[in-house]
């Protein structure tokens, strides 16, 4: 989403403080570096200063064909996909108030994978025009199922748990298909499951635009609501936001953002986890409105940077970009989550007067308690009535540590 990045670069000029000053510079530099690397490295090697000549030469030279028909769409696709995933990740994390709410947990990725695998394994012959539809349909099915079931659960982690359950169910269906598949289909499915940008063409890129046109206004509309949702359901209701409706709407926006990307590149894992944490780390004092464009920009940076080693590290074998984002993104995200919580706590102490009061679970690390608490509650309820003598004590002990530990 170039528009988002541009808007952010133009509008976001806050008084410089610490890392925030370097954020635009760093994003642009990283984007440029990875774009140049992606365009010039590989076979044939096109030196950066000849890139323009090669691109304008078009299909008269080999280098021109490779650059315009293979590398440029790939870079663009990486940019768009990363921006979508980063924005969707931030929307999810803010709407569910949980720093671990990632697209993978909504059932969207599993649904799309199922949509790709089913025609392949069952050897259904589809006309070329409707080829991408099963993946988008599967993604929408997974996300829609989660939304439908989660409509009954009101709390953020109920939605998250529902998403996990739906994803697991779809995964089971996928496993059946994987066992049925032969060796070649299996490799195709597995490669897709990890998220890969190899052999994507202009058709894939142009197929994404209608969805982006749909999603961008929705994102702009929902960003201010997200900032309010962060205060907690009760405070948000007091401010006039219907929390349940807003949460469902945010989930729908996330599904619209994730589904087409997943359909084209597969689930590029953990970008939606890393990008929001990066944007928060650089600008801990801001709200969701400012984080959103930066999260999209960081998502683009992550996917573009991951795609370079994915293409070249083990050449001539292509490794999936999703494996790299998972390998590098998760440790980085964890480190950011930790230091971000500490920094924000330190920042808030002197600046408390000037900033809006954060909700009870305002910090990222604080909201981490949601998931395990769910289990503790469930555990206590499921086990409670049947327990004998020593039974009551442990469950209560578990629950209290689960709720109060991280705060």
């Amino acid at each position, binding site marked *: 989403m170039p528009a988002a990045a541009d808007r952010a670069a133009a509008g976001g000029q806050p008084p410089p403080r610490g890392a925030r000053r370097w954020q635009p510079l760093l994003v642009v530099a990283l984007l440029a570096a990875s774009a140049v690397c992606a365009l010039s490295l590989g076979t044939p090697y096109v030196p950066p200063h000849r890139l323009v000549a090669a691109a304008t030469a078009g299909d008269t030279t080999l280098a021109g064909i490779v650059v315009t028909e293979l590398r440029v769409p790939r870079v663009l696709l990486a940019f768009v996909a990363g921006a979508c995933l980063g924005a969707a990740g931030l929307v999810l994390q803010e709407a569910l108030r949980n720093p*671990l709410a990632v697209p993978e947990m909504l059932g969207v990725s599993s649904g799309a994978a199922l949509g790709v695998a089913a025609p392949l394994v069952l050897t259904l012959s589809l006309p070329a025009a409707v080829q991408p539809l099963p993946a988008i349909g599967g993604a929408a099915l997974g996300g829609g199922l989660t939304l439908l*079931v989660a409509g009954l*659960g*009101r*709390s953020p982690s*109920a939605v998250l*748990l529902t998403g*996990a*359950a*739906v994803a*697991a*169910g779809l*995964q*089971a269906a996928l*496993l*059946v298909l*994987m*066992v*049925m598949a032969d*060796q070649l289909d*299996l*490799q195709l499915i*597995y*490669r897709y499951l990890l998220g890969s940008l190899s052999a994507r063409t202009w058709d894939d890129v142009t197929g994404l635009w209608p969805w982006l046109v749909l999603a961008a206004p929705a994102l702009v509309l929902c960003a201010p609501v997200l900032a309010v949702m962060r205060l907690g359901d009760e405070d948000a209701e007091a401010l006039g936001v219907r929390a349940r409706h807003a949460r469902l709407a945010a989930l729908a926006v996330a599904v619209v953002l994730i589904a087409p990307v997943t359909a084209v590149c597969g689930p590029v*894992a953990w970008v939606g986890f890393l990008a929001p944490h990066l944007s928060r780390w650089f600008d801990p004092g801001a709200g969701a409105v400012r984080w959103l464009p930066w999260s999209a920009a960081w998502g683009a940076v992550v996917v573009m940077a991951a795609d370079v080693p994915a293409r070249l590290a*083990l050449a001539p*074998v292509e*490794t*999936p970009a999703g*494996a*790299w984002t*998972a*390998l590098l993104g*998760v*440790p980085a*995200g*964890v480190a950011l989550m930790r230091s971000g919580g500490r920094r924000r706590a330190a920042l808030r102490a002197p600046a408390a007067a000037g900033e809006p009061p954060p909700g009870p679970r305002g910090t990222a690390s604080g909201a*981490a*308690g949601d*998931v*395990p*608490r*769910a*289990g*503790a*509650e*469930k555990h206590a309820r499921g*086990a409670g009535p*049947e327990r*004998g003598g*020593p*039974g009551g004590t*442990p*469950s209560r*002990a*578990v629950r209290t*540590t*689960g709720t109060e*530990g*991280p705060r």
Partner: protein
Amino acid sequence: MTRRFTALAALAAVCACVELVAGRGMSPGVVWDVLNGGGDATERHILFRLRLPRLLVALCAGACLAVAGLVLQSALRNPLAGPEVTGVTPGAVLGAVTATALGLAGWESPLAVVLAACAGGCAGAALLWLLAGRGRGDPAQTAVHGVLVSAVLGGLTAMVLLVEPGELGSVVQWLVGTTEGRVWEHWHLLWPWVLLWGTAAWLLAGPLTLLRCGDDIALAAGLSARRARTLALLCAVALTAGAVAAVGALGFVGLLVPHLAVAVFGADLRRSLPGAALAGAVVVCGADAAAQSSSRLLAAVLDSDRLTLPVGALTAGLGAALLLVVVRRAPDRTF
């Protein structure tokens, strides 16, 4: 309590019988013939060389996973800590896949697979230990980091599989979890391992019950909480590695069956640990029987011989359904 054990044991026996007669190739009447000493060579081979070891491996692996899950949940005092979310199962899968890809292990040398899986499981748990850092005493943080460790290990497994794409077909069953094609070699490898670590878990049942009450109470009762927890974790990793090497990553068994066992047998691990073992065996064996019968049914209905339902898919589906029921039953509860 005795009655509950008896009921569960009876259920296990029923599941075992169903597992023996389920499956393609032989009707129940033929099975009865073979058990009475009749049948031709092929039928005897199917029953004694294929179905019996498969049944035993399923029982044993289910018990392993459930016990490992209960030990983990008690030692970490974390109801979400199954072997799947503490990095143990993904680590074991990674170990097994890496050893196979490097040519160190294969179907001819199953012991190497078990050892590699065990090493991988230990590495996964160690990675969690490192990543959790100072927050490792806190159950919530441990669970959160476990999910992330699983993601990293999954990425590594993917890398290995893409470098050695030829191995993908043979190792996909580790990723899925299936009891198909398990023979006596697997069983001979599995049972001493399970016996050893199962006994260790049984000996740790008392200390683990204390650990469930919290470190303070455990320390006040004179238990060295650190040492007991380390031993328990080792035990859980070894049990999981054994099960993974035998049947692959069966989803949700290690996470959900312990809750079932605690609900039925109470929180005293001296009783609920054997209970969990029995329940795990029943669940995996029953799921395998159901998977076999339903894939037979599906094959007849859809008229395609390719269709087989792996038991891992069934347990994952069951787990997902259970999770949904739990979430929906309490819509207003702030989880």
